[in-house]
Structures are given as structure tokens and as C-alpha cells.
């Protein structure tokens, strides 16, 4: 393992982490402000990817597709909030879990009904394809660097939004006291729709970009959703800072675990066995991480309201 390879793997972990942050920040915001567990968050990721792929395929431009994907995710988020989600704010977590589980089924099958069973085509835009040289000689895809940059931008923007703007003030007020912002004369219903759509848009953004790297297919949101939940639980639900730290932690642990565990086992096993055992443990690693963190910090690393 050379230093440059290690550096490259750290970048990979960082990239996975920033992508997770796009998902997790929306999820944690919605929980922090409205107290809602949204299992259907992965569906917005899928909507973003499908609309981007479809639009890009039709117009020939990734960028038009990206814009359409984000807008569509936000719009779908707003509609879902108006029709379904707002009936769930005062419900128990159990009802929220079931209702949003139902939404997953509806979105997955609805998407399949609209777009068919086959995965859609979506590629990295021409301008961002290719790879650049890294210090140490290896090469790294430009598009992944862009994802990291977008993740960092979104993180900064979110921090500014929450700490500097009126909307952010309302969001913070909502986190600390839901009754109070009602009393302040803020239209709480509108605020909730806005926050929910914002979260959906971020998920859509993640889906659009990742769709270009991976495959755009029904069900693509579910593995990401579970990872995003692991992230926000590790970070402390409701905390944007926690989501950021959690994302990076999960991204790095997952990537490095996949790389190093098999190598570790190769010290005392045959390569094939080591690869198998290492991969098995690597796939369990982030869940182990989460269990350990919660065992010692039952409300995550940065519990928002504690």
C-alpha cells in the first residue's frame, strides 16, 4: 500500500461521505424541525436520478437534466408533504415509519410503471469526464472531485442558511420550540413544506449526481437510505454538524474497511479466503461502528436537543 494509494482511498471515502451528507442533511433537518422519521427520503434520491436521466436523454444535456432532477425532487417532496407528511407530524414514530414505508412501495412501483423495469442511461457530462493526476502519480476522476466540492458547498451553504438567515432562524426556533414559532406568527405549515422540499431537493441532487456514476434503477434509493440513517443516528438526530461528521466517518470507515480488512486477513489466510472473510466483515463494519457509538453515546455524537 503506497502513500498515493492511501491518499486516493481517503479521497474515495471523502467522496462517499459528502454524497451521504447530501442525503443525511435533509433527513436530519426534517427530523430536527418536524420530528419526523422519513423512510421515503431515498425515493427523492431515486426521483432525482430518474428525472435527470430522462431529461438528459431527451435534451442531450446533463445540466438541464440536473436542474430538472433537483426541481422534480423538490416538487415531489412538497406535494408529498402537503398530501401525506403533514398528517404525520403529531403521530407516533410507529405511524411515521409505516406511512413512509408505504410511500417507498408507492414510489418504487410508480417509477417502474412510468419508466419501465430497465435501468436508464445517464453518464457523466463530457466536460467533467476523464481523470486528473493526483500527487503521487495516480489519476482520479474529475467528476468525483466535483461531487466532493458540491458536498462541501452544500455543507457551507446549510451552515450559513441556518446561522445567518431568517429562514434559518425559523428553523432553529422550530427545533427548540414548535409552539413558540406558531406564537411568533410564522406560518408554520409553509415553513414545514419548505424545509421538507429543501431536504428532498438535496436528496434529488445526490441522486442526479450519483446516478451518473452508478446505475439509475428502481430501488436505488434504499441502500443509500439505510446508510443515511446510520449517519444521522451516529451524528445525533437533528444535528447538521452531526450529519456532517457522521457522513465523513461512515464514508471513511466503509471505504477503508473494504480496502484494508481483506489485506489484514491475508496475513494469516489464503487470498481467496481472506477476501471473502474480509468482505463479509467490511459489509458489517459500519453497523458495528454504529452499535458501538450508540452503546456509549445513546443519543449519537452531537445530540441536538440534549
Amino acid at each position, binding site marked *: 500500500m503506497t502513500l498515493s494509494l492511501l491518499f486516493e482511498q481517503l479521497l474515495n471515502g471523502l467522496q462517499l461521505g459528502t454524497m451521504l451528507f447530501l442525503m443525511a442533511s435533509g433527513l436530519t433537518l426534517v427530523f430536527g424541525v418536524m420530528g419526523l422519521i422519513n423512510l421515503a427520503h431515498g425515493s427523492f434520491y431515486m426521483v432525482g436520478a430518474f428525472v435527470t436521466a430522462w431529461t438528459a436523454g431527451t435534451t442531450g444535456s446533463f445540466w438541464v437534466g440536473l436542474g430538472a432532477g433537483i426541481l422534480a425532487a423538490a416538487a415531489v417532496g412538497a406535494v408529498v408533504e402537503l398530501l401525506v407528511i403533514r398528517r404525520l407530524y403529531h403521530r407516533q414514530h410507529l405511524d411515521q415509519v409505516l406511512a413512509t414505508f408505504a410511500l417507498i*412501495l408507492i414510489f418504487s*412501483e410508480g417509477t*417502474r410503471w412510468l419508466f419501465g423495469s430497465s435501468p436508464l442511461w445517464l453518464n457523466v457530462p463530457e466536460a467533467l469526464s476523464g481523470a486528473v493526476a493526483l500527487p503521487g502519480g495516480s489519476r482520479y476522476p474529475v467528476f468525483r472531485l466535483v461531487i466532493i466540492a458540491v458536498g462541501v458547498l452544500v455543507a457551507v451553504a446549510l451552515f450559513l442558511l441556518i446561522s445567518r438567515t431568517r429562514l434559518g432562524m425559523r428553523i432553529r426556533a422550530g427545533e427548540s420550540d414548535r409552539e413558540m414559532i406558531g406564537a411568533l406568527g410564522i406560518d408554520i405549515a409553509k415553513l414545514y413544506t419548505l424545509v421538507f422540499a429543501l431536504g428532498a431537493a438535496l436528496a434529488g441532487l445526490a441522486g442526479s449526481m450519483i446516478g451518473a456514476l452508478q446505475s439509475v434503477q428502481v430501488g436505488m434509493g434504499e441502500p443509500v437510505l439505510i446508510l443515511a440513517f446510520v449517519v444521522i443516528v451516529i451524528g445525533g438526530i437533528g444535528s447538521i454538524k452531526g450529519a456532517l461528521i457522521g457522513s465523513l466517518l461512515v464514508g471513511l470507515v466503509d471505504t477503508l474497511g473494504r480496502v484494508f480488512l481483506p489485506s489484514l486477513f491475508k496475513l494469516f489466510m489464503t487470498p481467496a479466503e481472506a477476501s471473502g472473510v474480509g468482505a463479509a466483515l467490511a459489509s458489517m463494519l459500519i453497523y458495528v461502528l454504529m452499535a458501538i457509538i450508540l452503546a456509549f453515546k445513546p443519543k449519537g455524537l452531537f445530540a441536538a436537543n440534549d
Partner: protein
Amino acid sequence: MTRLHKGALDKTPGATPVPMPRIQRETWVNWALLGLLLLAPMIANALGEVYYVNLATRIAIVTMAAVGLNLAIGYGGMISFGHAAFFGLGGYVAGISAFHAFDMTPVLSWPITMPGTDNLLVIWLVAMLSCAVLALVIGAISLRTSGVYFIMITLAFAQMIYYFAVSWPTYGGEDGLPIYLRNQFPGLDTNDPLTFFLICFAALVLALAITARLMQSRFGAALTMARLNETRLATAGIAPYPIRLVAFVISAVITGLAGALFADLNGFVGASMLSWHRSGEIMVIVILGGVGRLYGPLSGAMLFVLMETLLGGLTEYWLLFLGLILLFVVLFARGGVMGLLAGRARHE
């Protein structure tokens, strides 16, 4: 049996008087559901329609898994999103045991030699013990958290076990493990569909009776209070944590036994029994039927399995409709099927 239907929780002579007609209505509904489950396969069997016997067996087993989860969610207020771990573990105990019995190899050769077996009584015992141990570990850690954290940490543990099963080659990994010959119950022919149904039905009735009795006991009173008002319980000098932990273990044991039966019904056990969709499905059944109602899981499982069977035959987009129905139940039919059939829940 009558005692069983008087209601498990608060609606006992010493507690809240509930208007009489409602008690009778729920009792009546409970009996009707149980009777339907018992009679339908018998009639089907007499008509030679084996398929419906197996369908009823499936309902009985799925109900039992949900009865276990209902103990945790409905009675204990512990929203476990990881009960597939116990369902699957129970299944794997049956599968692994049958595998070794078929191959005549030992399950364990160290520290003690343990041969495989196809004796259901032994398998059930081992399945229940394994689930109890696993639940003790998972519960001990998870119950330190609460709320969403509890939901997610139970999910995390189930995922760990899922990935372990997928990548563990000895017992088939993702391909799973077929059970070539259904495990045997001393003195009965388990290959006869009706006999196997009756075994499962008896196990279900036992699980229901135990749950009912349990919830009337001191332990049940403490568990109810842990759910309704943890502070009150602690102020009475009863620590909530051990009460919850024991309830979690019992819940896991019931779900695990259902898993063992499920594996034998299907003649197959695989990692899909451990997946998070499975946890979601059991939870859906509990909520569909009515959370915290003794017979909620039965009505939920009947509805769920029938929907799966009927809708699945009508359209390949049946999951879309399942989703819509679920959404409708959550938003507009609170209290689930039992709420519709027997009126509002007794508490909350």
C-alpha cells in the same frame, strides 16, 4: 380460553370499566378470527384443496411472528425495526439442524459434540434459546437508547446479521439452505399439511395465551407502565430497563419460534428471512391489525397475506396498491383492522 378474551391489559375487573357491548364485540371478533383460521383449512382439506391449508399455515406463522413483535411494540413501546434477525435466526436453527441431520454430520464438534436433529421439539428449544441469547445481547445494548435511536440500532443489528448470513458460505449464503425433509414431531406426520397446520395453530394459540396471561401479571403491569409512563414506574421503585429487556427477549423468542416454523413450512431458509424488508413486513402486519391488541396480529396477517395473494395475482404492480392501502390505514384507519372490527383501542 375465556380468560384470554377478557382482555390482557387494563380492562380487567379491577381496572377501567369499559362499556360492556365493546368487550363482547372484541371478544366475539377475536373468537371469529381464530375460528375462521381454524375452520377454513379444515374445510379446504376436506375438499382436497391443499393450497389453502398451506396458506392458512402461513397466516398462522406470520401471525405468530407479529404476536412476538406486538409484545415489544404494542405492549412494551419498543419499536424494534430488527425483528427479522430473530425470525431468521429461528429459521436458520431449523435449517442448519435439518441440514446436518440429513448429512449425518455434527452441528458442533467443539466444545461439545452436537449432532443435527430433525426432532421439532429439540429444534424449537434450540431456536428459542438462541433467540433469547441474541435478544439479550441486542436488547442490552439497544435499550440504552430510546425513540428513533432504538428503531435504528435494532435495524443496524439486524443488518449485521443479514450481511453475515449472506456472506457465510457454509450454510448457503445468499442461496440459502433447503430443508429436504420436513422436520419431525414425535408421533405426528408433519408432512401432512393439515397436521402441520394444526401444530402451527397450536403454537400460535399458545403464544397468544402466554402473551395474554403475561400482560395480566405483575410483569405485564410493570411493562405497561414502562410504556405509558416510565417515570411513574421508576418512582415506584421499579427500574424500567430490566423489565423492558426481559419483554424484548420474550418477544424475540416468540418471533424466533415463528421463524423456525416458517422455515419448515417453506422447506427453505435464506438470508431474505433476515432482510430489513422482512422486519418492515412484520411491523406492517402489527400496525395493520392494530397495535397493542392481542388479536391485532391475526387480523393484520390475514389481511396482509390475502392482499399479497389476491393483488399479486391481479397485477404486477401490486406493491403499488399495497402501498396505497397501507397509507390509507395509517392516515385514516387508526387502530388498524381491529379498530374497524371491534372499536377503538382500550387504552391511549
